[in-house]
């Protein structure tokens, strides 16, 4: 491995990078994929979406086995073989990452496991794990170097009982008492896993509610259920200090009605993620980086440097795997001169807690802030046959509709399976569907997807299974 040249280098092998490399190779480009990890797949496969969802599935199984007692089916409390569980998770990760290596080979993408540092706009210096150094020049490079958990120096007290999401996914033990700092989706998902496995989980969130960004009415059923699963949820509360002690990590908490000092066996810091733009020589290129550390891009994923494109977490919010993958396609098509553009209307967001929370398009809070004219139509799952059969009636399906043409502008769902159901909403949003398009399409019975149809029905009249005296209107300042 001396000095090498590639038509296209993709730097970073996550859900942004590897789809980009594959798409480019499928279109005849000579592609080198560079990732410093032991196996490709990035955060998503190695220490993000996939391992967390594996464990969440187990957590759901445990919870349902407990809830079945209410229906007359009682199981023994679960016995947890932590090593086997860890292996299950690791095997899922291993087989998916191995699959990517296989697909690289099949498509003729050369995979180099090394860390890349830009020395200028057309050259990377590569350093492999064994210290070998070489250079790789390119015509173009797609930068897909992702993000890492935010760990303020203040929490980084050099004690491995204080973990980030990566540490929490390693599942070293099941702590008796776990503190989760940050009530975003990663904190709630990992908190749910540990709670199901038997930890007493305390969540501390600085702002006034869990999951900032989601509509409050949808968070509410989730919060109610989490309140039962967790030992405490403190909002408007700050963790002022963490101090190691023999008995555990002592957290100083500041908030109303909260014990000022509590001791935990482990602490998960999940207060956000930051882009990896700091340490790979981007200053030697012409890219522009914004004040949050994201590379600035246009709607074709181009950066200010004509040789470089950027996709995924490094290219801005929302930091989600499926956004990265779509951007990968846009970047490659841009290089090919195709009429691509990241013109997506909906990037779905899914929180894989139980119940799941998912939304796409405008949230109601956004619609309000932007002073859009809309009507909101909520269909309560208590009126859904399927939800009743599952014993899960806390869900809500909400559709926001633009009032003149009745075009769907946003959908939010809370309830089991919301993450799968949101796909229909994304399709409706991208296709410019109207409420009637959804209401007049036949949805299989009995499924939760019917709630989407019925929410849409309430936009144009009354849903079959729910009667509301007068639908809620929210048209700012319209003639009365």
């Amino acid at each position, binding site marked *: 491995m001396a000095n090498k040249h590639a038509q296209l280098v993709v730097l970073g092998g996550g859900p942004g990078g590897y789809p980009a490399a594959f798409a480019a190779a499928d279109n005849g480009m000579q592609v080198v994929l560079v990732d410093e990890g032991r196996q490709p797949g990035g955060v998503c496969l190695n220490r993000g979406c996939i391992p967390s969802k594996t464990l969440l599935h187990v957590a759901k199984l445990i919870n349902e086995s407990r809830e079945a007692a209410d229906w007359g089916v009682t199981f023994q409390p679960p016995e947890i073989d932590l090593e086997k569980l860890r292996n299950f998770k690791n095997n899922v990760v291993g087989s998916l990452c191995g699959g990517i290596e296989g697909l690289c080979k099949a498509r003729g993408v050369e995979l180099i496991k090394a860390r890349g540092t830009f020395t200028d706009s057309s050259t990377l210096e590569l350093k492999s794990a064994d210290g070998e150094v070489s250079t790789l020049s390119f*015509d173009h490079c797609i930068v897909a170097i992702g993000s890492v958990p*935010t760990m*303020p*120096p*203040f*929490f980084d007290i050099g004690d491995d009982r204080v973990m980030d999401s990566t540490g929490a996914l390693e599942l070293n033990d099941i702590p008796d008492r776990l503190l989760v700092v940050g009530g975003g989706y990663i904190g709630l998902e990992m908190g749910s896993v540990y709670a199901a496995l038997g930890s007493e989980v305390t969540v501390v969130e*600085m*702002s*006034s*509610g869990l999951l*900032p*960004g989601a*509509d*409050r*009415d949808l968070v*509410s059923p989730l919060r109610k259920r989490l309140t039962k699963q967790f030992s405490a949820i403190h909002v408007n509360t*700050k*963790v*002022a*200090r963490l101090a190691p002690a023999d008995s555990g990590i002592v957290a100083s908490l500041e908030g109303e009605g909260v014990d000022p000092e509590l001791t935990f066996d482990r602490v998960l810091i999940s207060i956000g993620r930051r882009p990896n733009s700091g340490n790979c020589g981007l200053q030697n290129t012409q890219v*522009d980086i*914004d*004040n*949050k550390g994201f590379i*600035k*891009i*246009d*709607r*074709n994923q*181009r*950066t*200010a*440097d*004509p*040789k470089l494109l950027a996709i995924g977490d490094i290219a*801005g919010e929302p930091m989600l795997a499926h956004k990265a993958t779509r951007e990968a396609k846009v970047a490659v098509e841009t*290089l090919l001169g195709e*009429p*691509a*553009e990241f*013109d997506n209307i909906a990037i779905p967001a899914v929180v894989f807690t139980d119940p799941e929370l998912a939304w796409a398009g405008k949230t109601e*809070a956004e619609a*309000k*802030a932007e*002073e859009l004219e809309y009507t909101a139509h909520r269909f309560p799952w208590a009126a859904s046959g399927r939800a009743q059969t599952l014993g899960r009636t806390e869900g809500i399906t909400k559709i926001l509709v633009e009032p003149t*043409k*009745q*075009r769907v502008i946003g959908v939010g769902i809370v309830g089991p399976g919301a993450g799968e159901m949101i796909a229909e909403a994304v399709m409706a949003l991208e*296709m*410019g*569907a*109207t409420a*009637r398009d959804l209401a007049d399409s036949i949805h299989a019975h009995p499924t939760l997807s019917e709630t989407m149809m019925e929410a849409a029905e309430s936009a144009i009249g009354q849903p079959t299974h729910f009667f509301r005296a007068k639908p*809620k*209107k*929210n048209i*700012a*300042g319209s*003639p*009365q």
Partner: protein
Amino acid sequence: MAIEFKLPEVAEGIESVDIAEILVAEGDRIEPGAVICEVETDKSVAEIDCPYSGTVARILVSPGQTVPVGTPLVLLEDAAASAATPTAEVLESAVKTNISDDTAPPQPAAPASDTENFEVEISLPEVAEGVTSVDIAEVLVSVGDVIKAGDVICEAETDKSVAEIDCPDAGTIRAIHVAGGQTVNVGEPLVTIEVSTAPEADAPATPASTASPVTSAETPVVAAPADALAPANVTGSPSTQRTPAPAGPATRRLARKLGVDLHQLRGSARGGRIVIEDIEGYVRSRLAQPAEVAGGTASMGIVAAAPLPDFSKFGPVEKQPLNKISRTAAANLHSAWITIPHVTQHNQADITELESARKRYVKDNPKSPKITMTAIMIKAVVGALRTFPKVNSSIDLTSGELILKKYYNIGVAVDTPNGLVVPVIRNCDQKNVLQVAAELTDLALKARDRKLKPEDMQGASFTITNLGGIGGTSFTPIVNHPEVAILGMSRGQKVLQMEEGKIIERLMLPLSMSYDHRAINGADAARFIVKLSGSLTNFFELF
């Protein structure tokens, strides 16, 4: 009004800080200059003080947190800015900060009280007699603004002047239908305002009423890179701000491919959704219309030449096929000649000293790259282009823009046995005359050997053609579209001049610059050539 006070730049180059201590509490009433918190950078500890007065409604950071510049630190209510603080960012609504109650479901907006509200479209009035359309220069209001009758909505440019368009009614801006750069006809809607029949709308009707027009949106503004990537104009293009047209991804892609603006179409599917057939129909109907060029005058098209007579009637002839180079050149020259209003400006540059210095150098440095007058001219042209950037541009009539190039790639016309080719020397501003000379020799050889690659002939921002080696006193070169100017050099001539009563001999170089009169006006072209000639005479300017 509510203000988010954001972390200002603490020191040059510092992008993020660690919050060390928060020195205010929620509920505190603060005056301008109050210290909000102490922060640590990798070099120092600094106090962050707040230029606004107000009540601390919420503290948005906590000690130990690492935050980048621009992070909201506190939310102030009833805030007022002290005089010299232009950076206040007013919150449109508290919802953005996620402080809405966790339990309460979102409530519908408060119903209008006993006043009656209705919406009025304000359209473009007749700005001046005979003016039927204007270009919107800047929109000065934003949605949510409360305006008084007579407040200015936007600035508009006519072909002669800039006018302020003011609003005849008071009310709240509900929608804006135009964007900067757009051409609007008299009578077309500019904004929709909600007018209230209540006595006077000077009460703070909405929290956003005092918002200044949104400055820079979060959308990244990226210079369209050249290179293999087709440059796209992403800076503030109106389509990125409008609500998306009701059409699926495949339909949108087809529209992009064909250059169709979906907002111009009426969709045939339910709710006005645009389907692929709508685009096909639109394109078909557009093709059926007579072609129009921007500005409304019918295009002349490329006029076909009259049929040729049978020359053999007059004497023997021989037919030679045109090669590819000649055919391409013919088509390009023809279209440039028809579409570009050409003017040629001539001048004579005194190169007496320059030429003897050049000859001396060439004689004394036989091993160095051969410095030719063309090589020197390239450097001189770059100097003049820097002074007159419009000459280094392209004109885009469809978008109504002049595209100024920040690079200096000079094309040099080379006569080869196969025809005319124009290899390009890139980034001539970053090369000295020796480097330019070496590259020129190399490219000329490649041209003669037909070894030039297409890339070698792309990307010129200005072209030079030198016929001095052959002879002639002057000529009128044709601009190499999409550039806007070309410099012709003829054979240097010795002339006699009077200097202090004595007859002296000077070597004068005839220069002829043709230019696109749409991009460059005559005075600027004359200034350019005078500056260029002067730099050849006082050639120290070239170094």
